[in-house]
């Protein structure tokens, strides 16, 4: 039978809870975003690298899915 909360799912929950705790913080003003504007702080610092890594892992592993909807497929999986 399916266990509702496995050890793995508990780990996931822990990550979520700590993330929510972190968000309960001070408001950042427009002139205080200098650090966040650095390109090493972007979600994707290298778009081609990100696309290729996704493609390779997609072809070697069963999982897919990210913050974007999945793009085109390939005969690799």
């Amino acid at each position, binding site marked *: 039978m399916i266990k509702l909360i496995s050890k*793995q799912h508990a780990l996931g929950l822990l990550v979520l809870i700590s993330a929510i705790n*972190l968000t309960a913080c001070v408001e950042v003003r*427009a002139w205080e975003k200098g650090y966040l504007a650095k390109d090493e702080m972007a979600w994707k610092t290298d778009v081609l690298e990100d696309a290729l890594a996704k493609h390779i892992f997609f072809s070697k592993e*069963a999982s*897919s*899915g990210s913050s974007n*909807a999945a793009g085109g497929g390939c*005969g690799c999986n």
Partner: protein
Amino acid sequence: MTNRYSKSLLALSSTALTLSSLTHADAPPPQSTASIKSTNYQEDDLLSNEVLFGELSRYDIDVHQFQLITPVSRNSSFQINGSYDSLSGASPWFTTADAEGEPIVNLSGASGIYDERRELSVGGSYYFENDTLSASAGRSAENDYTATFVNVGLAHELKNKLTTISLNASVSNDDIFPTDANKFNRIERASKRSVSTALSVSHIINQFSTYQTAISVTNQKGFLSDPYKLRDIRPDTKSQYAWTNSFRLFLDEADAALHLNYRLYHDDFGIGSHTVDFAWHQNLTTSLPIDFRIVPSIRYYTQSSANFFTNIDDFSSNPLMPQSSDYRLAAFGAISGGINIIANINSWRITLGAERYQAKSKYSSYNVSKPSTALVRFSRFSLGFDFSY
């Protein structure tokens, strides 16, 4: 004038390279950026005791990617992406039991496989005051496979200028037409459709950190089996769910950024997975008008097996019952580590990268009742150039 002066020019050009900015009003990129990247990755050969017959060498793949992003007007930008892959080697064909009853893999014929893949997509974005609407369409073609896809997305920045909500949807229509279909009694032509949607929320936590969480759902319908395997029967629908979390933290004292990502995945083939990756973006300031960044990264992945996975093909079973010995449907774990060295020189960015990936049954955090004998190990090397103008 001291060497200090060039650093803000670097800032100007490097900001142009970064698309997803949370820091100023949504606007087209201030400059055009052209990028190319060449990558070689090679799967390790299987050991001769792992293979009954056929090739020992697995895939050797070269990938060449290209991207151009350019502002078109005060409210819009255009982008084009291309990729060319060439692939040679062999892939698992079927699995049997050896004299001791242990699973053993058989790779595809001695002549091996040679294939090419070409992908081209074009897209654009329109920037409203607080919203960005994006759309793209593309096509990927191989000797035996084509995929045609469209993607639309809407990003909305809340009035607090701290939170961005994005919605994405994509559809891909794929056709497969295996080579030597008659000779090997393979299906001649089949197709599948994938529909995917994703919702994400990005939030600025404080001056130094941001967090993004997203949920994506993908539904596939059609021929989902591998026509090249001697016996591979999978259900003709599949639903995939992924929950991703990303965290970025800038450490001022270290002049470095920490990237942490976690993904929880589940699908109705019975596969669940966890992916954790971690990267450290260390800036190195020199007295030259060049800035370096070193980015070591590590990734851990583990998945459970599909309900119908077997590591020894059963040719006597009902041919309608789902069954597959594809190693990607086995329970396993994978550890990979890599390093990227980035140099920023005026309007140029040069990136040199290396990665080592190793999948093993013993790395799995899930129960492995049927270990696959065909798990991959590969090394990857890449060189990329970005130019802003």
